[in-house]
């Protein structure tokens, strides 16, 4: 599903974020990516939806070589991937429902169907009662669940999340981890970058460990 082959990423100024990275995440797998901060976890995740391009090597997603994808093809790649961003990137000028609706509006889903799917996604993360609320009125955990609902509403085959349990208390983090596990159970390929491995420990997932831009184990 996701294959990295000899991937390196150097930022301007000579900072090497990733080097000689080779690994694969199989379809239906759930993988936890761990490592100290600055190890390159975020950079690695950003290579998958072509937010960043590798300096060397190739990233293959769904049989498509992302590193060589034309600019015009990138939007369609991103629609097939659900993303939970480290800073969530919620839109604070619209309510919960409209935040979740955005990916469907972008994909052009018919309105009635879209409403049904938004509510289904909100139901899965337990926010159905808050659809009219503005994001600013939500707690940290609720905001994270909103970000997850938006990531899954278009039913992507791949779900990637960058530090989804950061700044959350233990119980809430465990809830969020359970949610990702539930999505994985219905066949979604899940890749999570976190330094809070203990929250995901109950699910016996495969672990990839990054240190200084290289795989440690």
């Amino acid at each position, binding site marked *: 599903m996701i294959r990295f082959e000899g991937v390196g990423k150097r930022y301007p100024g000579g900072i090497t974020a990733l080097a000689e990275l080779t690994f694969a995440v199989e379809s239906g797998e759930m993988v936890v990516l761990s490592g100290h901060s600055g190890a390159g976890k975020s950079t690695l995740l950003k290579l998958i939806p072509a937010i960043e391009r590798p300096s060397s090597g190739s990233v293959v997603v769904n049989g498509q070589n992302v590193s060589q994808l034309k600019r015009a093809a990138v939007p369609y790649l991103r629609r097939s991937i659900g993303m939970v961003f480290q800073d969530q*990137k919620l839109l604070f000028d619209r309510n919960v429902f409209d935040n979740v609706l955005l990916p469907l509006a972008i994909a052009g889903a018919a309105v009635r169907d879209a409403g049904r799917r938004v509510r289904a996604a909100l139901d899965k993360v337990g926010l159905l009662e808050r659809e009219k609320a503005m994001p600013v009125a939500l707690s940290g955990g609720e905001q994270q669940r909103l970000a997850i609902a938006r990531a899954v509403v278009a039913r992507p085959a791949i779900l990637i999340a960058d530090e989804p349990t950061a700044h959350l208390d233990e119980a809430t983090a465990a809830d969020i981890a359970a949610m990702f596990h539930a999505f994985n159970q219905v066949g979604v390929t899940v890749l999570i970058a976190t330094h809070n491995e203990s929250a995901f420990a109950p699910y016996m997932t495969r672990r990839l460990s990054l240190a200084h831009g290289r795989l440690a184990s």
Partner: protein
Amino acid sequence: MKGRLLQHRQAAALALRRLLATPLNTVLGALVLGIALALPAGGEMMLANFQRLAKRIAATPQISVFMALDAKPAEVEDIEARLRRHAGTREVHLVKREDTLRRFRESEGLGEVIDSLPRNPFPDAFIVLPRDDAPAALEALREEFLGYPKVEHVQLDSAWVKKLDAFLRLARLAITLLAGVLGLALVAVTFNTIRLQILTQEAEIEVSRLLGATDAFIRRPFLYYGALQGLAGGVVAWIAVLVAFLLLRAPVAELIALYGIDFSLFILPMADSILLFGLAALLGWLGAWFSLSRHLSQ
């Protein structure tokens, strides 16, 4: 196809909501664009009216024959008979000096002036419709009539129509240039408005791109915004022209009646109105397009 249409409807609705969300900005923007567009639009209305007027006059080339002030009635009758007999004339109207005096006295503002004159300043005159409209034939008639006894002055009305025509061509060019310059201003104003819009929607644009929005999807609501604002400017311009028309109609009709021409001012023709709205929307759209292209390529 259906999905496409839906996306366009959603983008248009979003653009409309954004316009309505900041009513003061929207109204001020429409006023700026409207006033800029009102100048060429108003000029176009005046020009279209002039052209119709000129056409009506030019359609019937006339020769005005003015008698000397001291011409006796018998001499006038003699000339009238000669004009009627002439093979080159189709119709001859005698305009008696007393009638001319009465007509001017009846018109507002001139009555007192006329009354203060010691004697009738108007000569007897003939309006002659020639059989042949060709300029050379008209010129020949003019020469001939001028040779008649007691004929003081002969005027070819086609000469000033030609001058008017040249003037109208010049006016048309001036209005086209004005429209071009102000159209450019409209594009620039929209460019800036959309630039500010983009800055306030920065987060939405960024998130939309991350979620797989194409450039076209991001562009669409802004393009509709630019086009709608341009259209609003066009409507303001149209209303300004309408107001000018209502204010000018009565005085213009009065002035023209003095020349004995039956003519009333008309508002911008339908085709010109549609052209105004279409161009205003198109220029707004263009301004938005330039603004977005600049932003999206960054």
